[in-house]
């Protein structure tokens, strides 16, 4: 039993939100990572965390004590490239269109998806994807928090709501058009070989087609591009539905001595948005000693007051008068 457990923990495990809408995971952030690993034919196990929908750490991959979180170093895919585990993009960086396509997918399409899930549609899809395992009061509060946060992120106010919506849909339409042209009748976006952009784009398209309601404006705009829809359904059949077990008989674990491919290792274990100043050992020791010193002073003072002084040094309560107790 222990051996199997150890083996399981050494295998690469992808942790995402739960499956829904006939997709292994219906979260638009998690599905690209799933598809990426599938495209790379990298065996992995799938595990779920369904109680932390508002976490920016999910999705993440882990193997033994190695973990790559979503909110570090540009995302899990970047981490996997950097740590030499999986890299599908090594030959595409210099392609002229690469950066532009990447920018379009990661900004315009991502924003459009965020808007459509939380603001544009009635929110039911989002609740099913993220909140199906949480109790109702928590769901209500988290949903309102998330809607507020999305509006903040997209710069939507009461005054400019319509205008922003038009802008978001227009940009999405432009992106779809460009990507559809780029794709043509190929199997993949670049050189007929899979890349991380395929994974990201496929993830977006599959969630739009399957998770968003039929009344969704974004979905209807996507349906105008037949080649994109066919591309997505073909890969869905190949990658998702044909693989019945994600953990194959052989597995690959992340070597424990893996070093980053380039540059000095500046692994940050803290989220990028809150960098903390590194404290030197000396400072830490000094602070610890200062704390002990202050605590010792406080204890001595309290002891002195209690032993020498007497009653209720710490009790400031106004006493009730007891003189009226006697019976006359």
């Amino acid at each position, binding site marked *: 039993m222990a051996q199997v457990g150890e083996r399981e923990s050494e295998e690469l495990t992808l942790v995402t939100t739960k499956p829904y809408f006939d997709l292994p995971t219906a979260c638009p952030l998690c599905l690209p990572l799933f598809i990426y690993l599938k495209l790379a034919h990298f065996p992995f196990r799938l595990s779920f965390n369904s109680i932390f929908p508002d976490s920016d750490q999910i999705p993440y991959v882990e193997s033994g004590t190695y973990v790559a979180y979503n909110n570090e170093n540009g995302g899990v895919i970047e981490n996997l490239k950097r740590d030499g585990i999986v890299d599908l993009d090594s030959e595409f960086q210099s392609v002229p269109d690469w950066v532009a396509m990447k920018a379009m997918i990661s900004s315009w399409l991502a924003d459009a998806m965020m808007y459509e899930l939380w603001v544009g549609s009635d929110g039911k899809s989002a609740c099913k994807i993220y909140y199906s395992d949480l109790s109702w009061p928590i769901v209500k509060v988290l949903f309102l928090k998330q809607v507020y946060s999305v509006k903040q992120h997209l710069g939507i106010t009461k005054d400019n709501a319509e205008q922003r919506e038009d802008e978001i849909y227009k940009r999405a339409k432009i992106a779809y058009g460009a990507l559809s042209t780029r794709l043509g009748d190929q199997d993949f976006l670049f050189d007929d070989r899979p890349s991380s952009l395929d994974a990201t784009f496929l993830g977006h398209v599959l969630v739009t087609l399957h998770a968003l309601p039929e009344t969704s404006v974004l979905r209807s705009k996507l349906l105008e591009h037949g080649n994109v829809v066919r591309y997505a359904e073909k890969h869905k059949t190949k990658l998702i539905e044909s693989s019945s077990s994600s953990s194959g008989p052989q597995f690959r674990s992340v070597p424990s001595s893996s070093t980053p491919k380039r540059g000095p290792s500046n692994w940050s274990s803290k989220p990028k948005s809150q960098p903390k100043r590194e404290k030197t050992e000396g400072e830490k020791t000094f602070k610890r000693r200062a704390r002990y010193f202050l605590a010792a002073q406080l204890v001595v003072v309290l002891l002195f007051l209690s032993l020498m002084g007497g009653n209720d040094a710490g009790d400031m*309560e106004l006493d009730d008068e007891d003189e009226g107790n006697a019976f006359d």
Partner: protein
Amino acid sequence: MSNLDSVPDLTPPNSKPDPEHQTPFSTNEIDEEDDDGDDENDVEDDEEDEDEDENGVSGGPNRPKPHSREARFRSEKLKMDSLLQRMKTGPVSVRIHDVIIKGNTKTKDHIIEAETEVLNNVGSMQELLKASQIVNLRLQALEIFDSVKITLDSGPPELPGTANVIIEVVETTRPLSGQIGAYTKAEARSSTVEGSLKYKNLFGYGDLWDGSLAYGYDHSAELSAGVFLPRFKGLVTPVTARAYLLSQDWLTFSSYKERSMGLSLGLFSNQHHEVTYNLAWRTLTDPSQMSSRSVRRQLGHNLLSSLKYTFKFDRRNSSMRPTRGYAFVSSTQLGGLVPDSRSLRFLRQEFDLRYAVPLGFYHAALNFGVSGGVVFPWGNGFSSKPSSLPERFFLGGNISPVCALGGPTTLWGFKTRGFGPTEPKRRVNNENANPSGVDFLGGDLAVTALADLSFDLPFRWFREKGIHAHVFACAGNVTKLTEFEYRNFSVQKLVESLRSSVGVGLVVPTSLFRMEINYCYILKKFNHDRAKTGAWLTFSSAT
């Protein structure tokens, strides 16, 4: 005994008390008969008012009315003496006609009347005095009155053998009070300093409102507000409700932070039993992003809806330095009391048994204690699910095991969350970094046992201050049962992996807390256990 015309006139109508042979009035005897302890609540029969209602002073109608004050005092003293005489020989029958409440401008009458129910069943003078004492104590316990005065008066003349009880209360003029104290909460497993503000009787229902801010040694902070209602819709015991915001930082020990926002209701509470309900939204996060796999799996939001029943039986002479008696505490907590299967479902049971034996020399006493606890999830697939991390048992801390009554909490010599199942933290991919260390995951089953011999020191100054010494030994273990680990469980393994320590120390009791300065020697520990042989300082306060 002939029938009485009225209660106050307690001398038989035909007798002529002889002033020269008056028995001296002795309150001491009355105290012993009727007073259960508190001298502040001495009960004296009031006969002054009675006299004003009387036509005659005492005895028959033919006696002349005394004019001088001294004569009046003498006659009243006579009455009192004869009453006491009669009360000594047997019950003096009386019943309550009316209870009159005065002095309450804000407090609702029914709040005070609810505390006087015990007067309704009174049948004799002795019972009346006892009952009046009880009523006095109860009204004072409401904490909303500055003073409570109970007067016994004669009933209406047409109803012989009756008395009126007049309750005069003075409502508190300063409803707002503040307090700072130090407490040891068994659940927190550490000492906390708490500052609170209390507002008494805001709506006149005897309601006590309080807001408090508590900070614990284990990096916990709690902001809460509560209300205490002595009588809520006819319920027998008082009801308390508390809304709280709690934050606990376990990053150093277990790589997670816990934040809870909830409501706690005290449904029933008396000397031995307590039932509380807790509804909370709890979130576990890991801002350090260094947690181990098991902790990572538990991060997120949970709805906690649980009912807790505590049975407490404490017959020890002191909780800070028990030298005689025994105590038993058992608490059962059932979580998942909503139809929603997505709330946290668990069953947690812990018990604690203590026994103190006095040894007769140097105020010495042997204290024995054994405690245990188990937690298990329930519901579909419960045997493969892990138990919820905050509900597990974590042993270790800076409080004294002698004072922490309630369940398995700590062993001498072991730091907070200092031993038990561990898991390696996330690997940092940096050659210069130290090894990440381990997360302490706690366990589903915990057992501890302690033996403590305390004795006075042969120096008078120490004895006066209550400072004494103690020699102690303790052992304990915590293990995992969930996720099919119970299949590997055996008592033999549990005993083989028991941690233990012995030591000697000085105990300094103060009014705020009990401080121990100990030297602990760790007899048995395992890899990763955070324990050290050496000097330790612990602080505990009354639970």
